[in-house]
């Protein structure tokens, strides 16, 4: 990214100074290599990033979705179809983390069914641009949910992420926030976004991050930075499919 662009962007909204991109590597992450067989895939599943780091159950169906999305030879129509399916699964799983209360309903046969009702007061926040790919999936589940946006760009050389634009619901501090960002390499972008949310008085524990692919580095980075935040992903793997946004939006 050329320097003068960077400066233009800094004129817009919220500015955030970032610490240099130092990634504290622990031994576990150091050991992590690209798996070369099914057994090593399994080993990768063993990584534990604490109770708030949740992985979608790796059924063979989910694995297929990941395979198609990762395959560089997948045609774009297939890519979008499978990505939307995986997004939907992550969103449905994320909604499980929202608060609810018990309630009984009367069925048409006159019987009582003991179920539950979801509490109101949630919202979505997508990190532009790839996070927007997940908006539709969330919209398909919650038709009238408020969705805010944060635009962050990072310097390609220094990996320093800068906030360019943020537009959030006014009462976001009283809401549960579903933060959407599909691909995490270093985790810097998400860290920046969470800090924006915190500046808007959102409690860390009220944030649920919806993510598709995450590197062990990013996972470790996030859990150590925001231990109270719930993180939901479908896969932890040293190689993240960084082409996701470009392929999804067709700007390759």
């Amino acid at each position, binding site marked *: 990214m050329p320097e003068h662009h960077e400066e233009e962007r800094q004129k817009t909204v919220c500015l955030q100074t970032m610490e240099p991109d130092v990634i504290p590597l622990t031994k576990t992450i150091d050991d992590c290599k*690209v*798996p*070369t*067989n*099914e057994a*090593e*895939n399994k080993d990768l599943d063993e990584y534990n990033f604490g109770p708030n780091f949740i992985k979608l159950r790796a*059924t*063979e*169906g*989910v*694995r*297929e979705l*990941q*395979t*198609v999305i*990762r*395959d*560089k*030879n997948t045609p774009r129509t*297939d890519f979008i*179809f499978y990505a939307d*399916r995986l997004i*939907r*699964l992550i969103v*449905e*799983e994320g*909604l*499980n983390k*929202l608060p*609810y209360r018990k*309630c009984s*309903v*009367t*069925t*048409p*046969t006159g*019987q*009582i*069914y003991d*179920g*539950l*009702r*979801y509490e109101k007061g949630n919202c979505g926040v997508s990190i532009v641009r790839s996070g927007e790919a997940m908006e539709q999936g969330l919209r*398909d*589940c919650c*038709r009238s949910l408020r969705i805010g946006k944060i635009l962050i760009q990072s310097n390609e050389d220094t990996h320093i992420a800068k906030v360019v634009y943020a537009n959030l619901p006014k009462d976001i501090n009283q809401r549960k926030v579903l933060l959407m960002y599909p691909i995490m390499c270093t985790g810097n972008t998400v860290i920046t976004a969470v800090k924006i949310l915190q500046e808007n008085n959102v409690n860390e524990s009220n944030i649920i991050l919806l993510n598709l692919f995450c590197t062990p580095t990013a996972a470790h980075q996030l859990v150590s930075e925001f231990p109270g935040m719930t993180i939901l992903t479908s896969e932890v*793997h040293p*190689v993240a*499919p960084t082409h996701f946004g470009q392929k999804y939006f067709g700007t390759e």
Partner: protein
Amino acid sequence: MTENGVFPKMTRSASDSGSGEDMDETKSGHEMTPLSVSTDLGPASPNGPLRTPKSPSKISIKKRLRAPPGAAKPEETRVLHTHGRRTLYTAGRPPWYNKEGQLKDAFVIGLCGGSASGKTTVARKIIEALDVPWVSLVSMDSFYKVLSHEQHERAIRNEYDFDHPDAFDFDLVISTIQRLKEGKSVNVPIYNFATHARERNMKIIYGANVVIFEGIMAFANAELLKLMDMRVFVDTDSDVRLARRLRRDIAERGREPQGVLKQYMKFVKPSFEHYIEPSMRSADIIVPKGGENNVAINLIVLHVHNQLQARGFKLRSKLAQSSHNGQPMPGSLHILEKTPQVNGLHSFIRDKSTSRDEFIFYSKRLMRLLFEYALSMLPFKDVVVEIQPGVFYHGKRLAVDKIAGVSILRAGETMEQALCEVCKDVSIGKILIQTNLDTGEPELHYTRLPRDIKDQYIFLLDATVATGAAAMMAIRVLLDHDVPEEKIFLCSLLMAESGVHTVAYAFPKVKIVTTAVDRDVNEFFHILPGIGNFGDRYFGTDFSDD
């Protein structure tokens, strides 16, 4: 070979005009009277409502009192129940299997007799008097052998003997009747009498409760005779038969009396004396005077009715009574994990005060989760894909070529869209099963399935499964189409325990996939606490709604 235009009344296409009246006299005898029952299986009958008598269309005549719109003639549709705004058409096909889901044999009637003896009339009268749905009529004409070029030339010169047992493909006849007897669907060839070859398309005849097989050589094969539950010989005086032939061929087909007589003497008469008349010995009943003999026909019908009654039984009431209570849930049952979301969605769609808009929205979300869950149960294979130049990823892909959805109308239809959203290029079939309010039995009214269904994995869709009677019938239909049991996934939003047990007991290899199982079924076969009538709530045809 006669030109097309010679028989303007008879013909619509070249193949019809050549359908044997010249080269094969015995055949023309069958072409006289079109049966007054509907001939085709679907609305897309190319022949229309049987105006043109032609061999191919006569090949299979299936009587269905209630068929999809456009297929059946109006007078054959009996409206028996009008319940509020809903009209139920009864007289679909009642269960043709027992409560274990095993087939009971169809009743096969063999009908033999000389040319122009009135076999077709007798068959039609039996079908009419039987007054049971799902009767298949199979004519031996479909099973003429494909002729070689040289034989074809001879046939054109009227020198090929179509009245000899060797002219028929008995192996195919036997395998076809055997399958029909087992209640399965068959592909019957369509014989083209102009080219003496089989058409590329086959005619599908679905399984039936009564199968009538007619032809001049119907009793000529011992193995075939064994398949028949009742053998009827139509014995008409040879003078009468010759007189009919003459009248038919001369008056209606414009042929020369000399030619007709010559052929009669050369092939038809010797054949009758050699093969057909002696086969009368195999008959259980001989009907003199052919189609005019109402006494004989009534006797036959009475017997068939008794036989059918002896085989039939009440299925659904048995299913509802059959007690599986306390038994553990079968291993073939897979219930979607009851996460807060799933539970919340259930709360929405079960609540009777939920608006239709919300009902549709939330049930669709639940369906999507259901299908993702079901898809993950299909077989997968390991694959290695390149994710970046030189970097490989060990993943999975479906080891399944094709998946078809088959919905049980009407409620099952609501699930088609959700299936399409998770499954690219899925083909969709439909089965209509309704409950006969008189008997409480499910009845099969309509089937439309993808062609190559036996090679595919099948997601059988029904929103709710209470007693399991309809699901069982649909599974039976699939099995009759040669779908292996283990390739069937029964997908529903809600099942009752009794339905689970019934289906699992009858078809242990069928995977049952659902989002919840309720305990009870009430006397109206509704699930308790349940969801109400899913189809009514989804389509807005319930009476409580505005």
